[in-house]
């Protein structure tokens, strides 16, 4: 997964796109497609639905190109837009007709997928299994916050923006999640004192 920060390049392409350059738009969506798809498939196993949402998103972005704002965080802007779109597509309740919270599907079920050979240190594989269990036991929102922080290097403000929640709750999600992870490592250590997060 590409998590390279291409801020400068992104901005250039973004501004080109906003002034109607279809080539730049193509390059822009090409760059971000893998991450958007990855994020999208965290909410549903239906990958065609995600592709579909992305197509709609791209078309809307294009139609509205002149009114789209300047942003320095193109990737996060796109992730947020995709999340909104998915909420509308799959979050609508069949019964009440209202929009419900999007469910971040637990990605941490099962055993860690790292090849056993890579984990050479004694006891580490076991510890990783424990951590995996702890991750699977986190709330969806905690999992999503960790995922965005870990896979997309998103800062608290950006996570808040993508998930449409306030900064404090992101902070709490991450803080609580890490607390649980630390707890599950078993041995208490002085380094598990809560040092300033992030």
């Amino acid at each position, binding site marked *: *997964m*590409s*998590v*390279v*920060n*291409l*801020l*400068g*390049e*992104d901005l*250039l*392409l973004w501004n080109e796109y906003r*002034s*109607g*350059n*279809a*080539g*730049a738009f*193509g*390059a822009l969506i*090409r*760059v971000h*497609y*893998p991450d958007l*798809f*990855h994020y999208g498939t965290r909410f549903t196993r239906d990958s065609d639905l995600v592709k579909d949402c*992305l*197509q709609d998103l*791209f*078309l809307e972005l*294009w*139609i509205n190109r002149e009114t789209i704002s300047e942003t320095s965080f193109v990737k996060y802007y796109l992730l947020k837009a995709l999340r909104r779109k998915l909420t509308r597509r799959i979050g609508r309740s069949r019964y009440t007709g209202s929009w419900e919270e999007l469910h971040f599907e637990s*990605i*941490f079920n099962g055993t*860690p997928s*790292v090849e056993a050979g890579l*984990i050479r*240190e004694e006891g*580490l594989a076991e*510890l*990783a299994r*424990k*951590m*995996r269990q*702890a*991750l699977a036991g986190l709330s969806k929102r905690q999992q999503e916050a*960790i995922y965005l922080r*870990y896979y997309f*290097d998103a800062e608290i403000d950006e996570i808040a923006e993508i998930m449409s929640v306030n900064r404090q709750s992101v902070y709490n999600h991450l803080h609580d999640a*890490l607390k649980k*992870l*630390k707890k599950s*490592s078993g*041995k208490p250590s002085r*380094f*598990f004192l809560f*040092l*300033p*997060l*992030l």
Partner: protein
Amino acid sequence: MSEFNSLEDLVFSRSFRNWVLNRESSEHAFWENWIKRNPERAEIVKNAKAVIYALHLNTAELSADEIDDEVGKALIRLKEAPRYIPLEGLDGRRGRWRGVLRSPRSWVLVVLTAAIGTGGFFYYRAQAHVRQIFLNRHRPVQVLTADTGREFPLPDGSVARLEKGSKLYFPDQWGSDRTRREVFLEGIASFDIRGNPAAPFYVYTDQIIIKVLGTRFVVSTFPADGRTVVVDLSGKVALYREQDLEAPPGPRNEPEGVVLTPNQWVLYDRREDRIYKKLVAAPEPLGGLDTIIRYERTPVREVFGRLQEEYGIPIQFDERVLDSCLLTVVVEAEPYYKKLDQICKAIGGAYEVIDGNIEVTAVGCK
């Protein structure tokens, strides 16, 4: 490097993660050393490693081809967007490039920016290298810088339109070496190249070297993530990687490069060092005018030949199989792929886009 005091400092450090997941990473020495110097943090390190292993996901990722297909689809749909004002070529900026694309002279549009980020090391090295080749050959150089988009005349009569913040380097003594005209580009530019078969025009960019063979063409390169996209809309354009130009020339005494014909585009991925050749989402006829053609008992070979001529896109088919096919069909003025559909339907065949070419399969008409 900042201090790593807590579990989260390590887990969310990209450098640490790279080292944990890839022993061969360039950060290896740093982390081995850091761990030696901080024995009291052994426990945190172990936990951080466990978390990283635990976070590792084994999700299916899309292949480059699948992604390209999706992007291609999206670009086709742009054409259908209600407010889309169809213009010639890929570039939809209203009016702006219309004159350019209709220009009797040839234009190259090149967009290039510096890539920032990890993985940029090799990229940076290559970038420095191409630049060096250029600078070694040409000294002193002149630099054109654009604060806002504007056109600059070049010594050979060509014109470069530089976009905001772009730079173009060209040799002081252009006239002395008449066998090639070379420029180095940083940023975005369109070139209106005066055709001169005796002195091909080369655009050096950080990632790829573009050589203009023909006289009428439009090229766009949009690099991102170490990638360059070059689109050819009308004419022949050759692309070379740095090593192609250094390698011994091929059988025809020409360096091995990739030649684009109109309506083809390539995506060059510097880090994978791969070139993906594609067709543009909505090919445009070379003459700019779309025509309705009525065929009556015309050999299929001729129909495909005409289409190939009209769009410049190579069409491959088995001549032996289709030789007997006579076609009576009206090819309407409609999008290229619809035309192909129409012809293929008439011969009971199908087409595929392979490596930027059209490959038609059909059982024949006997």
